[in-house]
């Protein structure tokens, strides 16, 4: 069995009385692709916000490589090796595409004001490195984000390309785990099929471990090693896609109770 990367112990979060997450237990091993599914408002995004340090849990513990993440700022979590994308694409819209992937390497680089002012040799080397690495992650998506695009602002990109750039930006932080929040939302079937393949590659070629929130069950079926189902902040099922998709609780959560039982 491979190394356990992320362990979530008995995690709860409440927003003024609303239990967004309740007693959640969860783990991710290195090299896995885990999908988190659940109806709208189930608490999936909250779950990501908590791992990435944007929301503090009321109870419980998050451990990454045996160190607790509780109390860390989002930038420290990213520095530890967990990167994320956002459900409602949040790029640095007025920075160029290249700058978007350069700036997200911030926590992997050192140069400060001194190097910038005097253009020291190490400053130039570092700039060259992050530029090269930035272009490398961008070319993961073929020719769409490179070439003349490099110096265009992110705001001119199409919706699908913005989503791709978000993933590239997360990759550029050189993480071990990438959290993808609905990566194919808003894409057409052809595009989501392609991206599904790329998610597989993220693990196989780049060695990232992936946790993905997704509504598109086709995508979930195609790439996940394991599926976790949340409903009303609670885990209602875990297991392989086939196990989960036939689980009566899951069907009930998605389709609602059969009418006669509900009444």
């Amino acid at each position, binding site marked *: 069995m491979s190394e356990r990367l992320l362990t979530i112990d008995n995690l709860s979060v409440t927003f003024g009385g609303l239990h967004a997450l309740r007693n959640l237990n969860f783990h991710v091993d290195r090299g896995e692709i885990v999908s988190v599914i659940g109806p709208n408002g189930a608490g999936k995004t909250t779950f990501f916000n908590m791992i*990435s*340090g*944007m929301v503090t849990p009321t109870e419980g513990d998050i451990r990454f490589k045996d160190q607790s993440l509780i109390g860390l*700022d*989002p*930038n420290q979590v*990213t*520095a530890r090796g967990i*990167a*994320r994308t*956002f459900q409602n694409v*949040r790029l*640095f*819209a*007025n*920075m160029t595409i290249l*700058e978007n992937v350069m*700036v*997200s*390497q*911030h*926590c*992997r*680089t050192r*140069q*400060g*004001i001194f*190097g*910038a*002012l005097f*253009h020291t040799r190490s*400053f130039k080397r*570092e*700039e060259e490195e*992050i530029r090269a690495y930035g272009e490398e992650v961008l070319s993961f998506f073929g020719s*769409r984000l490179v070439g003349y*695009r490099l110096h*265009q*602002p992110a*705001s*001119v*990109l*199409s*919706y*699908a*390309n913005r989503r791709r750039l978000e993933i590239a*930006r997360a990759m550029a*932080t050189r993480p071990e785990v990438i959290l993808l929040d*609905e990566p*194919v*939302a*808003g*894409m*057409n*079937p*052809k*595009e*989501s099929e392609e991206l599904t393949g790329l998610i597989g590659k993220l693990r196989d070629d780049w060695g990232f471990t992936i946790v993905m929130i997704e*509504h*598109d069950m086709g995508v979930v079926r195609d790439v996940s090693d394991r599926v976790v189902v949340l409903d009303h902040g609670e885990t209602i099922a875990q297991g392989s896609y086939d196990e989960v998709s036939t689980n009566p609780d899951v069907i009930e959560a998605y389709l609602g109770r059969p009418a006669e039982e509900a009444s």
Partner: protein
Amino acid sequence: MTSVEHNLQTPELAPARPVLDQDWRRIARFGAIGALALIFISLTDMPDKLDGRMIVEPLLSMGYFSLLWVPFLFGNLVTREVVLEGMVAHRKGVRELLAGALVGLLSSLGLVVLIYLLDTRDLSEPLVNWNSDLHTVLTFGEGNGYGMGFWIAVCVGLGLLGGLFHLLPRLVVQPLKAASIVVLGAVVLESALNDLSEGFGLESLFESLFKKGSDRGGLSVTGALVLAAFGFAWVFVLNAQVAKGKQVFQQAKERNRSATMTVSSVVGVALVLILPMYLGRLTNDLLVNVGLFLLLALGLNIVVGLAGILDLGYVAFFAVGGYTAAILTSPSSPGFSPELSWSVAIIAVVGMAILAGLFIGAPVIRMRGDYLAIVTLGFGEIIRLTVRSDWASGVTGGAQGILNIPNADVFGLFSFKGTDPQQMLYLVAAFCALAIYVSWRLENSRIGRAWMAVREDESVAEAMGINTVNAKLQAFVVGAILASFSGAIFAAKVGSVFEISFKILISIVILVVVIVGGMGRIAGVIAGALVLIGILGGPNQPGLLSEFSEFKLLIYGALLVWMMLQRPEGLIPNVRRSRELHQDEFLQDAWLRKQVDEDEAGGEGEVAPA
């Protein structure tokens, strides 16, 4: 798509609209605004006060100009057609002339009513400029009938002219614009030009253009005509040359281009080195003020323009620089008086600026947006009031300030005399050059990108691994250091510091310079400082148009509002900022130029459920 492209090249015009197909409400609105503007300007007493400054002697003074532009501009704007995507502009005709004339007429009624009221009522109690002087200026001392008739005729004429501008072909409008810019520019720069001509021994040229021996300044009629002709020539001859040069520059290889940049910066540096020798005292002094504010504005540009921190208490760092230099160098500073040389003191100034930046920055930097603005506003005042307080007056001199600040000497090698504007100009220019270099290098670096990311979206920047508190603090401290340099030079220049020199108004003026110039753009900030501080003057310093000093803040405010509405990206915009503010237009343009990508898979198949 093809038809759109076609339109871009040869705009087709829809037939002119019938004369009476007017937007009457718009005409009434513009007329009313024009009338109110004329009354307002009259009651600020601009026509009277500025009558002492001529544009063309003896035809036109700035006082009358302050009124005349109103009917012209509104007469022009009333029929400005906004052409949206997919719409076609109409051919212009008599309709536009009529609308312009009507707006002119309605505007003139404002002055007619004012003249009547000035004559029959006395409202000098609330309206201090309500007096017979104003009446005389408006009626030319020839009685109500003459005054009213004059303004009606002139306003209608100017409104008509405004409308006519829509009809004239570009080939006529452009030279006219250029000619008026050249003439107005020459008038505005009159005293600087006078200085320069004396420096270069070209008095005869100056005197051939400007009216001799007139204490009200202004061009002579022939001078105005010569300059207007020059404006025309510019458009027809030089414009084409400049455009060609630009094109060559843009097509030049990267390497050649940077060579050109080097050459032009060398020329710039040489100009800064040589020019002060030929300029007179007054102009040099004015440029020193511009430099001091430029230094401040460059610092604030890093804080507001790059990192997006709206710091309204920026003057605090100017004060820290000024007082630190004063205390350390002046022999008569109370309490603590080490009498260091200025160049040693400047090191302490940097240290104090860093401390002050951290001290003010640390508590406020976690706040965002408006909250931060308000808290920094408070800190700006707190620093000034602390300096003044009894508690600190043992060191800072309280309201008495610190006097006898010696010249700025540099390691005993060289001394910049505070009373000699030429020497001060070299000193301030050196620091401005340093600030420009720092801004330029930081903008294109790891930390500069982090600042921009924070400005774009702070929480995402944080999630992408940027320690936003650190990044913002660094921006704050760099800005503080640049401001403190300005303060230290200011202290050495004036020879004394008083707490009243560091009022909140300075913060506001610097912010206006940055906004009007173009936030986040170095060239914009330089242009903003030259135009605002150089021409209109700083909070306590007169500019080239010293007659305007009373109306300076009014014009600042008007300019700021106008800028925010019409050109939020500033005089010389930062490409990024302007994109941010004109997102839609930009996307449209980009689409027309086929730069926005369309999803490659095409429309077949529906979008996956969200």
